[in-house]
């Protein structure tokens, strides 16, 4: 492995177009960072849609609009996760719900901790992790993809079993084992990234540090690119080591409409627009995609469309609290 030498030849810092072209192929297995309405790499995801990637396999824990918009745009073949919903706004996310009810995608359900542990196992390089969760639930017994189908397919990233229950060799008690998840590419949105890839996340990390470690390649979009040297003055505050990161893209507000702690809040007004379109059916949703994705030439134009400076000022986080105190979150839904 000589990643760092690679870097001398070609810089890791790039634009979303290049990152998606380079690292996201059709059929790519993607680990999604963020949590429900927080810190999803939305601009990167919109670029995946713009480049019309197909048959993606998504892995997540509690996802939201990141997974939902990809599903609604027809990019997704399968999703393995614990939850798809936009907590304060709508749950389940509309395109996910419709796709499952119409069986136009495949899905596999774990609990949030079960899904987390799959990334942890991947990050640790072991084939499984044990847990006492899910025992007695239908997550143990009901499989989205059958054991037979799993064996038949020639997909090295698809575990031979959804999970297994064993008797503990030390205590005799029942323990559930979940199989490791190692995505081809992790997509993460962070507050800060060093010029060579050292990542710092402020606030909750969610599962991002493990998704990055589990994956083969890592794409990081970030609010700010900081001097690598400065990032290393307090290395205890960094979550992802530079050598794991393959692409760095600076996209201020790149997680909109989701929230980024200390930078900006989630945007209830845009969520209302999105949800209305997504609930109204495929046709209405195509219009949303045309308006906010396909016809849009990059993040600047997107930010103008969703309300421009006036909107961004209202979403801006209070610098102590880390979130906006200017938005009225219930209002767009009255």
């Amino acid at each position, binding site marked *: 492995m000589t990643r760092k030498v690679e870097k001398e030849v070609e810089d890791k810092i790039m634009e979303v177009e290049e990152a998606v072209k380079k690292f996201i192929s059709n059929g790519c297995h993607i680990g999604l960072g963020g*949590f*429900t*309405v*927080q810190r999803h790499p939305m601009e990167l995801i919109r670029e995946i849609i713009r480049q019309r990637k197909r048959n993606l396999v998504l892995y997540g*824990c*509690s996802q939201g609009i990141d997974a939902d918009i990809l599903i609604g745009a027809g990019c997704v073949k399968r999703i393995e996760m*614990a*939850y*798809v*919903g936009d*907590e*304060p*706004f709508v*749950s*389940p996310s509309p395109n*996910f*719900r419709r796709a*499952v*009810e119409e*069986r136009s995608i495949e899905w596999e*359900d*774990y*609990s*949030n*901790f*079960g899904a*987390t*542990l799959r990334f942890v196992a991947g990050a640790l390089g072991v084939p499984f992790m044990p847990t*006492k*969760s*899910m*025992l*007695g*639930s*239908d*997550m143990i017994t*009901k499989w*989205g993809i059958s054991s037979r189908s799993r064996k038949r397919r020639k997909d090295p990233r698809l575990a031979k079993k959804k999970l297994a229950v064993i008797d503990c060799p030390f205590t005799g*008690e029942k*323990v559930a084992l979940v199989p490791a998840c190692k995505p081809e590419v992790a997509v993460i949105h962070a507050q800060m990234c060093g010029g060579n890839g050292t990542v710092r996340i402020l*606030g*909750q*990390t*969610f*599962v*991002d*540090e*493990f998704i990055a470690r589990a994956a083969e390649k890592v794409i990081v979009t970030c609010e700010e690119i900081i001097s690598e040297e400065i990032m290393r003055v307090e290395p205890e505050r960094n979550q992802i080591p530079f050598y794991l990161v393959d692409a760095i893209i600076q996209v201020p507000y790149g997680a909109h409409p989701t929230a980024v*702690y200390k930078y900006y*809040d*989630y945007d209830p007004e845009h969520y209302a627009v999105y949800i209305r379109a997504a609930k109204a059916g495929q046709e209405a949703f195509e219009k949303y995609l045309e308006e906010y994705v396909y016809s849009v030439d990059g993040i600047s134009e997107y930010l103008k469309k969703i309300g421009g400076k006036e909107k961004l000022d209202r979403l801006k*986080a209070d610098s102590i*609290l*880390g*979130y906006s*105190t200017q938005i*009225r*979150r*219930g209002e767009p*839904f009255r």
Partner: protein
Amino acid sequence: MDEDDFSKYTTVELMICRAAKELKNGEIAFIGTGLPMIAAMLAKRMHAPDLIVVFEAGTIDSKLLHLPGSVGDPRCVYGSTICSGLFDVFGTVLQRGRVDVGFLGGAQCDMYGNINSTAIGDYLKPRVRLPGSGGAGDIAALAKRTVIIMKHEKRRFPRRVDYLTSVGWIEGLDSRSKVGLKEGGPVTVVTDLCVMKFDEKDKSAYVAEIHPGVSQEMIQDETGFPLDFSRAKETPEPTIDEIRLIRKEIDPERVILRRLTKYRQF
């Protein structure tokens, strides 16, 4: 309704106040989005100032100045003792057995307190797809006790859930320990009609408290399994203080209260 008349309350507000009473001071509570968050914030402002609120996305003992809209909300971070991620909270707090009480909700709840938040109908051919377990399946398995909050409708209280996302007492008696779970299990169900508890022996739900103005018939009509009313008292009413706190201090933006009236159908 006059929102400034705190002597009048909605059913949802009654549920919140009653749920808050399930949280004891000094306990560690694992709280999910929505009504449970309002109940936890109310409890902290009333009888349980030292309630330790844990959110699965990575915060422990949030001070909760403002109502979070998500368990991963930036609003969860302020004043917390530690801010980490799902592995830490689910693993070293919940699964380690530190959580005294967790709140659960869902689309269906059966007579043994099992909950479905995954799919209505067949799992592989669902009539209605729901968001999925999220942390609910974990809380149900691993908290020392759980409290369930549900809208009381017949289709939501079937004899058996279509998909068992969050384990309650499973099939009653000792079936919970038989699957390998050492402790935990639901103790209370708070609905918009009544409060149910679970029989010590067979673990089936019975009615423990009936809300003011609700009849036994109304409850039984909205329930898909027979209920025992022999132990039922009347649910205590919210106080003016509680209602004022909920409306004016906890959810003045109507982040959650708004949704509870608009989005409760599935």
